[in-house]
């Protein structure tokens, strides 16, 4: 289904490109569309190229994972546009040259200038295109299910086709289309976030049609038997551990335990097994059981799923220790991948990582619908504590590659 929509979009864009390509002839048509593009269309096309993958995914990711430092990056792009407007655009238009190296050449008339300008444009474009292509692959992979490499190749081929056949005219119209869509849907996303407001992790939003309820990660207390913790989970036992040591002080920084435990299974109307993994109901496929990645045990006449997942040791308020659930992705050395203990082909959705640990007192855990200025001021108050998403990757003792999000 997603592939059909994607193909429709691609054909639409190629159609726009070919149609407008017929109208642009000659060098002027190729480079500047013969100056025939309406200022409104051009403006939205610029907005669309500003909202490219670099901003849409990159800056959002930087701010989500690095906080304020990411915000500083987002202001950087803007200055380049100002310089382009005041210093470069007008003289180039007046002289009728189309590229930067042409414009320089007119003033200075030395062969080295063109080479230098051309090389610098190529280098800058290369650095800019790499994240765009990575973003293209990263977006296409979960949407269409094809591999990252193919996503990059397809997107790259389509873009090259558009630019070479239609030149600036088609590029501008495609970007106008792109920009309009992005602005509209980014606006919708923002409105949705503002309507939902902010909640702390301990104040779960009830499940509604969007299914975006919070999940309360389990915390269990542990008792020690020598070095090994005893866990109070059904059928639970510790199979592995991973410890990171602070290089400077020699203290243990983080301790993770691999716990093998039993999760209750229910039967749905077709007789397939259903388990609740991190709040999501998961239907097990027959292939999961035959591949040996998960197994079912029967105790006291009830079926249970034997699940292996990693838990993090955190300290509680009394100086003792608790174990808290984490989310994990395990690639075993035999090739299968488990997400939160379930094979990735069956169910691969992870819960949202990171969140808000504490809001200022007057909100009592949830702000409700909130305006744009208010949400910024709430987030910057001292009393608001954010949980940044953290992850750690390592190789466990039996050779599996483990990534833990906690």
């Amino acid at each position, binding site marked *: 289904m997603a592939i059909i929509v994607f193909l429709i979009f691609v054909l639409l864009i190629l159609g726009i490109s070919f149609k407008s390509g017929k109208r642009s002839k000659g060098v002027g048509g190729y480079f500047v569309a013969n100056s025939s593009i309406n200022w409104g269309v051009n403006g939205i096309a610029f907005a669309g190229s500003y909202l490219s993958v670099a901003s849409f995914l990159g800056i959002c990711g930087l701010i989500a994972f690095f906080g304020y430092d990411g*915000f500083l990056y987002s202001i950087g792009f803007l200055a380049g546009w*100002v*310089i382009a407007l*005041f*210093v470069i655009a007008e003289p180039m238009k007046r002289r009728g040259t189309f590229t930067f190296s042409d414009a320089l050449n007119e003033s200075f008339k030395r062969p080295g200038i063109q080479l230098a300008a051309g090389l610098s444009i190529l280098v800058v474009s290369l650095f800019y295109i790499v994240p765009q292509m990575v973003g293209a692959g990263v977006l296409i992979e979960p949407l269409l299910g094809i591999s990252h490499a193919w996503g990059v190749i397809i997107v790259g081929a389509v873009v090259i086709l558009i630019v070479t056949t239609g030149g600036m005219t088609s590029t501008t119209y495609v970007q106008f289309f792109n920009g309009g869509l992005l602005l509209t849907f980014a606006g919708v996303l923002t409105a949705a976030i503002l309507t939902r407001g902010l909640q702390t992790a301990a104040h779960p939003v009830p499940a509604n049609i969007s299914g975006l309820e919070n999940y309360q990660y389990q915390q269990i207390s542990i008792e020690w038997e020598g070095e090994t913790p005893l866990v109070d989970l059904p059928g639970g036992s510790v199979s592995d551990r991973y410890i990171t040591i602070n290089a400077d002080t020699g203290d243990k920084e983080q301790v993770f335990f691999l716990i093998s435990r039993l999760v209750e299974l229910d039967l749905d109307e077709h007789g397939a097994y259903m388990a609740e993994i991190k709040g999501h109901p998961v239907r097990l496929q027959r292939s999961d059981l035959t591949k040996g990645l998960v197994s079912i045990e029967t105790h006291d006449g009830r079926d249970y799923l034997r699940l292996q997942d990693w838990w993090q040791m955190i300290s509680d308020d009394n100086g003792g220790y608790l174990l808290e659930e984490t989310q994990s992705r395990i690639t075993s050395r035999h090739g299968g991948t488990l997400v939160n203990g379930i094979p990735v082909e069956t169910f691969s959705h992870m819960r949202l990582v990171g969140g808000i640990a504490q809001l200022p007192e007057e909100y009592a855990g949830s702000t409700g619908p909130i305006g744009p200025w*208010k949400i910024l001021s709430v987030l910057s108050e001292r009393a608001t504590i954010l949980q940044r998403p953290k992850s750690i990757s390592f190789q466990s003792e039996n050779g599996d590659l483990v990534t833990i999000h906690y």
Partner: protein
Amino acid sequence: MSRQLPADYEAYELRKIKIGIRMTILYAIVYAGFIAFAVFQPGRMGMQFFFGQNLAITYGLGLIIIAILFALIYNHLLRIPTLNNKE
């Protein structure tokens, strides 16, 4: 685009270039102020409140608004004086 060039077009062109460069330098100073704040006084960015926001967001959004304002001013300053010569 065929347009009857006014007699003082040369002066107009020089004016365009001068205004463009001056506005760029002015914006660069404002922008450099933001960066200087971020580098030398990062703590200040979080603490001062204007309209309930902290300095970082105010300054960042201010940069965007100033860029738009400058563009509009630039557009206004460089209107082509078409009728001045004919009259």
